[in-house]
């Protein structure tokens, strides 16, 4: 009888338990050492903890690698900790922002916030007076108007770049990119000089929406273009082979196939403009009452409300500003999550 021995599969490239334990040990060792050094030397503060811990951990791991495997491995270990620090520094501000806004903003929330406006409340009034109704309806009005104007233009631009691909494709691609870099304040000044002064001569929601349109078009155009590029050419060829004109092919095959991706583009566009402040400061007047007429009279909006409360300076007003920021942040987060959920199945049918 012969016994057949099958070797158990091994994965020598993965870190073994011993390696993991060793890494953990060095990690804990640097934490302890940092703590001790901060305690016995005059270096104090969060910054000292952060920098010391980083330096200690880096030199410990790099030193270990140097003695175990030589200088190339030591450099590798050094860079590994460096890039990890880069990632931590990237994410730290966002954690701080979300944490601060939530912890300071919830104090400003109350039941009446969605049903009352600020027309009868002074900046120094207690939080329970007044609410966000005018700001939310105003932002909604501005966004809807900007949506009506920018979505067709944005999608047409994307269609030109993907479906027609004429001789102007390259310059237009370039211009769309350039347009996405237009500072929001310049968009506001433009509407001020081109529409508000010569034609309407007064603040209104429409003026704000026009400026937001300029800022939203490039976002919608670029995201839609990415989505339309993903639609396989087979679908377009099938449409033409069935005798469809290009118009019918685009309208009945390409656009429906890209539907959820296009919705993502629109949502990202809304997220881009929902918190835009600078042009609204120039163009909308920022009223304190609900203004149902978007074409006449000053209109409130969330960013304007936050800006006004922040500049009013009283503790109550600052709390109101944080509450406004919390609401704005939640809106942006919801929109963004929605866009990601839809965006994961871009070419769904």
């Amino acid at each position, binding site marked *: 009888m012969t016994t057949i021995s099958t070797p158990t599969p091994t994965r020598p490239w993965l870190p073994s338990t011993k390696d993991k334990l060793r890494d953990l040990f060095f990690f804990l060792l640097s934490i302890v050492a940092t703590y001790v050094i901060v305690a016995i030397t005059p270096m104090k*503060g*969060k*910054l000292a903890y952060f920098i010391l811990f980083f330096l200690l951990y880096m030199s410990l791991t790099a030193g270990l690698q140097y003695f175990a495997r030589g200088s190339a491995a030591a*450099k*590798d270990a050094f*860079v590994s900790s*460096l*890039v*990890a*620090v*880069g*990632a931590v*520094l*990237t994410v730290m*501000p*966002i954690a*701080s*922002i979300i944490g*601060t806004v939530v912890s300071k903003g919830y104090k400003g929330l109350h039941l009446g916030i969605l049903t009352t406006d600020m027309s009868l409340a002074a900046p120094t009034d207690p939080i329970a007076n007044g609410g966000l109704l005018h700001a939310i309806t105003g932002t909604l009005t501005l966004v809807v108007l900007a949506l009506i104007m920018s979505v*067709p233009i944005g999608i*047409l*631009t994307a*269609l*030109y770049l993907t479906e027609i691909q004429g001789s102007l494709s390259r310059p237009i691609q*370039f*211009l*769309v990119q*350039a*347009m996405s*870099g*237009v*500072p*929001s*304040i*310049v968009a506001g*000044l*433009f509407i001020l*000089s*081109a529409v508000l*002064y010569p034609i309407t001569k007064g603040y209104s929601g429409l003026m704000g929406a026009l400026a937001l349109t*300029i800022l939203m*078009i*490039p976002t919608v155009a670029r995201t839609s273009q990415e989505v339309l590029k993903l639609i396989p050419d087979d679908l377009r060829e099938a449409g033409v082979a069935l005798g469809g*004109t*290009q118009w019918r092919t*685009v309208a009945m095959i390409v656009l429906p196939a890209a539907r959820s991706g296009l919705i993502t583009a629109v949502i*990202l566009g809304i*997220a881009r403009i*929902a*918190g*835009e*402040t*600078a042009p609204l*400061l120039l163009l909308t007047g920022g009223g304190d009452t609900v203004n149902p007429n978007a074409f006449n009279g000053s209109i409130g909006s969330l960013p304007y409300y936050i800006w006004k409360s*922040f500049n009013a300076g009283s503790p109550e007003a600052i709390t109101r*500003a944080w509450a406004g*920021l919390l609401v*704005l942040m939640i809106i942006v987060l919801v929109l*963004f999550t929605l866009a*990601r959920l839809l965006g994961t199945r871009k070419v769904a049918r």
Partner: protein
Amino acid sequence: MTTSAPVRVVPAPRELTTQPRFSDKVFRTVVTIGGLSSLLILGLIAIFLAYRGYEVLRQEGFKFLTSSDWSISVDDAGNVVDSTFGLAAMLVGTILCSIVAVAIALPISVFSALFLNFYAPGWLKKILIAVIDMMAAFPSILFGIWGFLVLMPSVEYWAKLLNNYFGFLPFLKLEPYVVTRSPFVAGVVLAIMIIPIVTSVAREIFSQAPLDRIQAAYALGATRWAMIKAVVIPHGKSGVIGGAMLGLGRAMGETVAVYSVLNIVFQVNWQVLLGAGGNVASLIILKFGEASPYEIKALMAAGLVLFLLTLVVNAIADLIVRGTGKSGR
């Protein structure tokens, strides 16, 4: 029985043509017009701002860019008695803030992009990308108020430390000793705002590094860092510079966040840590509220300068980024 020979009816041959149908012509025209809208809007912005600002630009001439006085006096009837407008301090401040921002953001972004592409495990990568993209969508007013109320005290402390230990460097000098609301603070806030943008451009570029070369480097026994140094960085260098320029363009045009944290002074100041800065976009917000019609024209001219500045920076950035995308390896 005779039957008449069947008459052969030959249908007239269908005209074969490569001309698009009428509906397609309409479609193509409409789409082309929509596509040209970006040209139209950009052109109109330049034309209208130039038209409104023309009077001031002609009065000030080249001094508009080189002098740093900004004053206007109006008599009781509302007539302009005397006015000088100069953007020099604001332009210097804008450039200073954005350079600080890019200098801080670029290394951090490159490191985090490398981490995302080559170090992070799959699940962490997914989460981090979502978080960083979301941060790019956060409104600037959020960064501004957070920067003013939360970040500013720490940054002022860092500024003091920098001045203490590196004060001998010419650009970190500090006299008089005022650190509040300096270009450095504004630069840090701007850096936090542009890190997500630069990170995603860098990540995109790094992920296009040719896989065969990466594997070849590993097969030759390279460590991860040696592979990055030999393959990824040469491939992505110019693309990352383009991404940094893109961030620079964003930083130059940012208004609300800078206005919240920066002390605006009409005096050219090259000291990064000194609490006196300038910013074209913030100037517009600062002066707009109580500006007379003539001063508004000066603000329009300032807007035109800002517009052209960001346009040029963005154009260069776009050329660099697209150039690397095409060449592949």
